């Protein structure tokens, strides 16, 4: 072959590449400039400032890893980490179990299933602040004392709110997974005499593993990054010896920022938080990739 042939899945060709490249200022530049303003510069500045003592960006004074040491030794931050992990894990289990069984029931061709799906999804459209306010009003009037006084109530209140918001979302992903389970496999199991539970355990579950992976990690990251609902429901209260009993990581960081002489420490906490969330995301990527190879 003398003529160089383009591979079938080519994403570019010289014929259109050049003219587009000459329009750089129209096509890519606006997004790139905004991206620098809204993400890249604040991100790099944040990394740099985490190694400084500062109250505004102009009076930064180099302190090396001092802020990280302070962040690490802050009992409030450690408590927030423990509390966040507890919220994330408990909500992860409850949300996924509920969402899976709702999805399983609603893919059984029962009457009104599309209406029910719609209903379950609605809370997901409501933002954390409004959603939190609705539930705070209701929960506080059911309980003998407010969630801001009794930390255990605050914890379970938050779990209820998270379930109400996320079950519908995860349900959608599980429904997509369940509908992709090959019909002939289910048929074969039925002919072989497997009962409902056995079919669910040996055929359905292994086939929806990709959805389970996605949903597990989604609810885990959602749990770790939670801010709005935590702010509205209890705002970290009750506070004992300077430690908010229901304060999650994101709220702890935001509160640390609001103390002017603690901003360097707050930024260091934010970097640690970023590393934590990114690690979870990387593990997720690795887990998903591994599954793809197997199939």
């Amino acid at each position, binding site marked *: 072959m003398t003529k160089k042939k383009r591979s079938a899945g080519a994403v570019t060709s010289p014929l259109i590449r050049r003219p587009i490249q000459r329009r750089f200022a129209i096509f*890519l530049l606006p997004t790139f400039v*905004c991206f620098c303003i*809204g993400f890249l510069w604040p*991100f790099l500045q944040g990394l740099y400032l985490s190694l400084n003592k500062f109250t505004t960006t102009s009076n930064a004074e180099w302190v090396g890893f001092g802020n990280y040491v302070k962040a690490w030794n802050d009992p409030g931050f450690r408590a927030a980490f423990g509390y966040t992990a507890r919220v994330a894990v408990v909500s992860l289990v409850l949300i996924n179990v509920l969402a899976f069984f709702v999805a399983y029931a609603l893919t059984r061709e029962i009457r009104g299933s599309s209406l029910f799906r719609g209903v379950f999804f609605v809370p997901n459209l409501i*933002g954390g*602040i409004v959603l939190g306010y*609705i539930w705070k009003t209701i929960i506080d009037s059911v309980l003998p004392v407010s969630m801001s006084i009794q930390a255990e109530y605050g914890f379970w209140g938050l779990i209820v709110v998270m379930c109400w918001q996320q079950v519908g979302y995860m349900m959608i992903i599980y429904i997509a997974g369940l509908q992709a389970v090959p019909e002939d496999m289910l048929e074969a199991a039925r002919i072989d005499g497997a009962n409902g539970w056995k079919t669910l355990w040996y055929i359905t579950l292994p086939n929806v593993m990709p959805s389970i992976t996605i949903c597990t990690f989604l609810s885990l990251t959602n749990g770790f990054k939670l801010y709005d609902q935590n702010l509205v429901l209890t705002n970290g209260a009750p506070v004992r010896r300077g430690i908010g009993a229901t304060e999650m990581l994101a709220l702890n960081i935001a509160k640390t920022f609001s103390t002017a002489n603690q901003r360097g420490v707050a930024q260091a906490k934010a970097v640690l938080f970023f590393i934590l969330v990114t690690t979870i995301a990387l593990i997720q990527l690795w887990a998903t990739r591994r599954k793809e190879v197997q199939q």
Partner: protein
Amino acid sequence: MSQAVKARKAALPEKQSPGKLALTVLFAVISVAWMMPIIIVLYNSFKENGFVNANVFALPNRESFVGLNNYVNGITFGNYPFYNSAGYSVYITIVSTGLILLCTSMAAWYISRVNDLFSRIVYYLCVFSMVVPFQMVMFTLANTARELHLDTPWTIPVVYLGFGAGLAVFMFVGFVKSIPIDIEEAAAIDGCSPMRTFFSVVLPMMKPTLISVGVLEIMWVWNDYLLPYLVLDQTKYKTIPIHIQYLQGSYGRVDLGATMALIILSLIPIIVFYLSCQKHIIKGVAAGAVKG
């Protein structure tokens, strides 16, 4: 279309088995329970303040019913009227979403078709930005926005475009890579400029992704609290989430009846949006699940 629906209905067994019927009944009950928080807020929005406080679960009766008074009071009370916040919320959501869709779809086309080193770097930075939590940039972003005078509702879409570009670029690039280049080549041979090729050939093909990304951005911007709270000048500009949080936080004695009315008002656009494009919303949300 309607024929297909009819065919599907006919394929369903005429009589449902008792087990399935029981499931339907069970889910009907659960669905009502699931909607209860919204229903409670709805009927409380017609009760007089004192009665909301006394018992949230009691239905409005002749004594506690105040008609639309709570709505009228809610919209105007306080030194920062609610209609201002609602207006800013609508404006910011529409303009930010429009700006994100236009700019990132153009950028994504450039990135996938030019595909040089710089484009690839920008693309990977965008993907990277998707995993970075907002707390990482909250202080520095608010500062940068203030220094560049982007702290008004008219300019905050620039900040949204910047911080939200990652997911949008990622989704658009994924789509552009899947469309055959031959169509664009044909347009170029016919003498179309890149602008014309993009707007009359590429953009129409992008419609499904435009809808998915649009839905995700609308839901994000409309419900966002921390970003506008930090970036906007709070004394002059509020959005609905900021307004609601402000009411419960620092208002002293809050008129609960009026607050319930405001919550209902802030839910109406969401419910209308959901009912009018439910299919697209669910599809868009499922597509966004990849962002992790």
